[in-house]
């Protein structure tokens, strides 16, 4: 059981890393891009860069903002 947990923890750390919000935002951005491209016919090439910048900014802000 411990080995399975360690295996899972390794892959979580390898793929997701320190902040799971970044991975969640990237997944949401890709899903939205695909929906816009395939269902609405919008060539939304600009969406993923915006999501990436927002994810980076949000993640950095969460770590560095002064605690209240």
């Amino acid at each position, binding site marked *: 059981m411990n080995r399975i947990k360690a295996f899972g923890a390794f892959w979580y750390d390898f*793929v*997701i*890393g*320190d*902040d799971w919000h*970044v*991975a969640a935002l*990237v*997944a949401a951005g*890709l*899903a939205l*891009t*695909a929906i816009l*491209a*395939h269902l609405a016919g919008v*060539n*939304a*090439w600009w*969406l*993923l*860069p915006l999501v*990436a*910048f927002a*994810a*980076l*900014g949000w*993640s*950095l802000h969460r*770590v*560095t903002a*002064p605690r209240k």
Partner: protein
Amino acid sequence: MNALPLILTVFVACAVEAIEALTIVLAAGITREWRSTFQGMAVALVVLAAITAAVGPAVSYLPLTPLRLVVGALLLIFGLQWLRKAVLRATGYKALHDEASAYLREVTAAETAAKESRRGVGDWYAFTLAFKGVLLEGLEVVFIVITFGDNQKNIGAAVIGAAAAIVVITIAGIAVRAPLTKVPENWMKFAVGIMLTSFGTFWGAEGAGVTWPGNDAALLVLVPVVGLVAVAWIGLLHSRKAALSAPAKESEAVSS
């Protein structure tokens, strides 16, 4: 796409992994025993070769669009994590990744561990330390080579970049026989973070079904824009830190 940017991107990314593997191998070899360390390295390289032989050709048979979606998503997540860490380190919010202190940690642990022979290996600790270090960092090299090479349909160029990085770092390691502390590792990671984020965004969006204006030429805009955003964050966090420390200094002056 010209092969040179691909070779350079893979070279820098793989050089970072090779430096980390070298630190672990040196710690195992110098403090424990070189023979077992080399055995660990050799077994890790055989496992890596087997994984590459199994996964490499299989990846090239996958359809390009879903492959780009998955690989783009992974590269974008990796790239943003690397950029995040590099920005935090550049602004002092996170301690710099120091190969000298990483080496010291490994050496201290290696010196205190008991010597034990197993399965024909003289020093099992040195063997497993070298095996794990080379396998884990090597897996990242294999991932970079396969994803970048396959997406650009130029595995050869990606292999050249990776092989050159491993050869250069190995020669440098043999020459100095110490962890490569003079290498500006954080700035290399910053550059790799920019490249992974840019390529990940590009392939991920293509995999999701969009067409980039200018096709591959869009990368020539995307890379500098990602770099500018990251540099802007470094500037912003520096000024935030300065603003936070200013009132503290003022109150210190008032109280004295």
